[in-house]
Every structure is written in structure tokens, then in C-alpha cells.
């Protein structure tokens, strides 16, 4: 590991002042790991893990959660269990209790890909070393993207929480080094790789996530399901977050986000437009799934994810409309 300066920030303002030339440290469960491998080499670490670390406030605009809140505290919060059950399930299906106790909301959003060539410093990876190539293209790409990839990078974003946040239309609040703030829809926080896969998200250098706000009245029917190679402690092969209401027998306020399929949590806009206003039926669900996956491209080992995603969409919609899944209070 390369030596660095360590600063513990007393406030968000302190953090951005100190953070401009460095990196923010949340729980460190991703950053410290990558620093050990010298994939990340910050000169300075600004510890923000204790900032707003117990701040979960309910207000008119919704539930406002501090970026330093741990993944386990958020998952177990009574209001999250009651009103945003899909978020609780998503958080609890990620990593392990030890990691969730340490991992923060801000750090979970900005965790980096688990592409094995990104981790292997002897292999070509445009995300790690821009312009070096992408060994995943002709490599083992079972875990890689089927939507929105580029010829420069086919990695996926690994977070479960971020998929739930995208489906719930959460908003990320940030503070910039110049003192200005902005609100970014969680679904637009991450970006597609294009020609610059070294950038995972739209935040500027030194921009701090301070809070995430969950809307006050999310859809009542909610569901998160993670398909993985073993039943616990594994990253998603594909995951899905679905939320909607049934109003007079018709689907309303529907949102669907997929994980494990793209460089960012993938909002299934096309499926949503097929579904909105329709009455639940196997045909409608299949049409929605087909519409969304029409653009999907397999890379060889991950071709199966296309059918798997379709089947997940159909199954999630069916179970939810039959009321078999979590209903928010």
C-alpha cells in the first residue's frame, strides 16, 4: 500500500475542504481493499465515516439518510422495514453482517466493479489503466454486462443497494468543494462506460455525498430478488427491484431496476412504459420483458443473462400482482 495522509473530517464542509486532493473514506471495505492491491493510490484519505452516521430523519419530503449511516443500520431501521421493504431486502442480500456493519451508504453507492480483470493488475483493463484494453471482452465474462456496454468496457456495477435506490427514485445530495450543493436522482448517479470507463459516476473530483433522500410515498408493492451462485455471500448474477401500485386493477407508478446487467443500476424504462396503466397478465409481463431486453447483447459466457433477466421480470411482476411479496405499510 502507498503511504497517505489521514484526516478525520469534523463536518461535511471540512471534508470537502480537505478532500479536494484526496479520497473520502467511508467504511473502507472497498477502498482499503483496492489500496492494498495498489489499484487505488490516494495521497490523502479524508475519513467521513462518522459524519451524519446516525442521521435518519423522517420529514415531508421523505426519509433523509446520512451518507455515513451503515448498511446494517439502514436495513434494520423500522421505517425502512415498513415503507421501503425492497431496500431493506437489497441491503441485507449484500455482502455479510460484518461488512454491512462497516459499509456506509455513500461508500456502497461508489463501490467499484468486481470485474476480475480490474482486480488483476497484470491484465489489460481500461477502467484501471485507460487505453490499456479490456481483457474481459475475450475472457471469462459470465458476470459482465448485457446492456449499455461499450467495446472499451463491459463491467457491471456490483451494488444491491444502488439498484433498490434507483427503483425507489431516491435522490442523492452532494456538497462540492466550492461549497455548492446539488441533488442527483439515484438512477442517474452512475454512468455508462462509453469511451471513458475509468469514470463510474457523474460526481466531480472532491464532491461529497452527504445524504440520500427516499420519497415519502413509494409504491406499496415492492420486491427485491437476487439471483446468485450460492444462497448467501455472493454478488448478483442478475438482480431485480420492482415497485408499483394497483389502482382499480391497473398497474400504476411502476418502476423496475435491474442489477448485474450494466455499468450502472439499469432502470427498465421500456418495460415500465409497456406496463404503466395496464392490467396484470402473463402476456403483458412477457411483452414488458421482451421490450426491455430487445437491446441486450451477450458477450459469450453471459448470454444466459438475457433470458434470465426476462424470466426474472415476469416472475417478479407475477408474484407482486398476486400479492405474494412484500407490501409496504
Amino acid at each position, binding site marked *: 500500500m502507498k503511504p497517505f495522509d*489521514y484526516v478525520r473530517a469534523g463536518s461535511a464542509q471540512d471534508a470537502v475542504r480537505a478532500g479536494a486532493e484526496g479520497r473520502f473514506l467511508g467504511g473502507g*471495505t472497498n477502498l482499503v481493499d483496492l489500496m492494498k492491491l495498489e489499484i487505488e493510490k490516494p495521497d490523502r484519505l479524508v475519513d467521513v*465515516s462518522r459524519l451524519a452516521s446516525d442521521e435518519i430523519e423522517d420529514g415531508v419530503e421523505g426519509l433523509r439518510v446520512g451518507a455515513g449511516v451503515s448498511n446494517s443500520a439502514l*436495513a434494520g431501521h423500522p421505517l425502512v422495514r415498513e415503507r421501503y421493504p425492497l431496500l431493506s*431486502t437489497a441491503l*441485507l442480500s449484500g455482502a*455479510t453482517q*460484518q*461488512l454491512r*456493519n462497516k459499509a456506509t451508504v455513500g461508500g456502497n453507492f461508489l463501490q467499484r466493479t468486481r470485474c476480475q480483470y480490474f482486480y488483476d493488475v497484470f491484465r489489460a483493463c481500461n477502467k484501471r489503466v485507460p487505453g490499456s484494453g479490456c481483457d474481459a471482452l475475450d475472457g471469462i465474462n459470465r458476470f459482465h454486462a448485457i446492456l449499455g456496454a461499450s467495446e472499451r468496457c463491459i463491467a457491471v456495477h456490483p451494488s444491491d443497494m444502488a439498484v433498490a435506490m434507483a427503483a425507489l427514485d431516491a435522490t442523492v445530495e452532494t456538497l462540492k468543494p466550492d461549497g455548492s450543493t446539488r441533488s442527483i436522482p439515484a438512477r442517474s448517479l452512475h454512468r455508462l462506460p462509453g469511451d471513458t470507463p475509468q469514470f463510474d459516476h457523474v460526481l466531480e473530483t472532491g464532491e461529497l455525498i452527504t445524504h440520500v433522500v427516499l420519497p415519502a410515498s413509494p409504491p406499496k408493492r415492492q420486491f427485491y430478488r437476487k439471483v446468485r451462485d450460492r444462497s448467501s455471500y455472493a454478488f448478483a448474477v442478475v438482480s431485480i427491484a420492482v415497485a408499483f401500485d394497483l389502482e382499480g386493477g391497473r398497474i400504476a407508478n411502476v418502476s423496475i431496476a435491474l442489477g448485474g446487467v450494466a455499468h450502472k443500476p439499469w432502470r427498465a424504462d421500456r418495460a415500465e412504459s409497456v406496463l404503466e396503466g395496464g392490467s396484470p397478465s402473463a402476456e403483458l409481463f412477457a411483452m414488458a420483458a421482451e421490450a426491455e431486453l430487445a437491446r441486450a447483447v451477450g458477450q459469450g459466457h453471459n448470454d444466459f443473462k438475457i433470458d434470465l433477466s426476462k424470466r426474472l421480470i415476469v416472475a417478479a411482476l407475477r408474484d407482486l400482482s398476486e400479492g405474494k411479496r412484500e407490501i409496504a405499510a
Partner: protein
Amino acid sequence: MPSISLTVNGEPVSAEADVRTSLLDLLRETLGMTGTKKGCDHGQCGACTVIVNGTRINSCLSLAVGHEGDTVTTVEGLAEGNGLSPLQKAFVTQDAFQCGYCTPGQLCSATALLNEIARGEPSVVTDERVRLSEEEIRERMSGNLCRCGAYNNIVDAILSVAGEPA
């Protein structure tokens, strides 16, 4: 080198350590407390599990400098006086280990698990009410790998302490 003060197993300690030192290396190398084990050093095996301010974490992925003022419990702090804790006894009677390398992490994890259940904290397999079951234990202990495969007996040991049929 930064100086770090924290409480380990009830004793206040201060130490100087390179800023890159993990909490695990601080415990093992600087403080000479080798009960906590290093398996992978990358957050994947759970051998390094310790309890910090009442919650369990992987000490290998945590920088020691970040723990200023924290209260840490390691496997050396689980015994009650000179006697083993009920969970430690259960690991012996249920034969919950072979080589023993993962055991300190298993014990810290399981100790914290019993407290999480008592506090009513959910896991992904929890429906409405949290209650100790084999399914809950397997899910909640999935961050502690055992190369010897002592899993069945580990589950039995935890169940037996909770007063459920083993």
C-alpha cells in the same frame, strides 16, 4: 507515525503505528494479541472478525487510525474470568472446529450474532419476527468460512447456547 488510543478487551491501550496499519495488524503485530487470525486479508473469509463498539467487523479491511477511541473485543476477551463463555464451551462440547484457525472469528461472529438476534435485527431470511433458527444462523454466519467444513457443528453449538434443540 500516528498514535492510536483505544480500549481492547476492557484495557485502555495506546500504540504508534504506520498509517497503513489495519486494525488486524495493530492487534496482532503491534499489540501482540495473536488470537485474531488473518486468513485472506481482503474481507472474504471472516477469520479476522472482532467486535467494535458492539458490532462485528472484519478487522483486516479497517484502518487502525480510524478506530481512535473505539472499544474492541477480540477472542481473548470473550472468556468470563478464567472460565470459558457459554458459547466457547458449546464449541468444545459440539466439536465445532478441527484445525481451529477460523474459530476466533467464528466465536466473535457468533457472540455478536446472539446480540443481534436479541436486539431484533433482521437478516435477509427474517420474515416478521426475528427468531434463532438454523436458517438464520447459516445466513448470519455466511461471512465466516471454515476450510475444515465444521459448519454443521458450528450451527449446533450456536443453537445449543440459545437453548434451542441442537
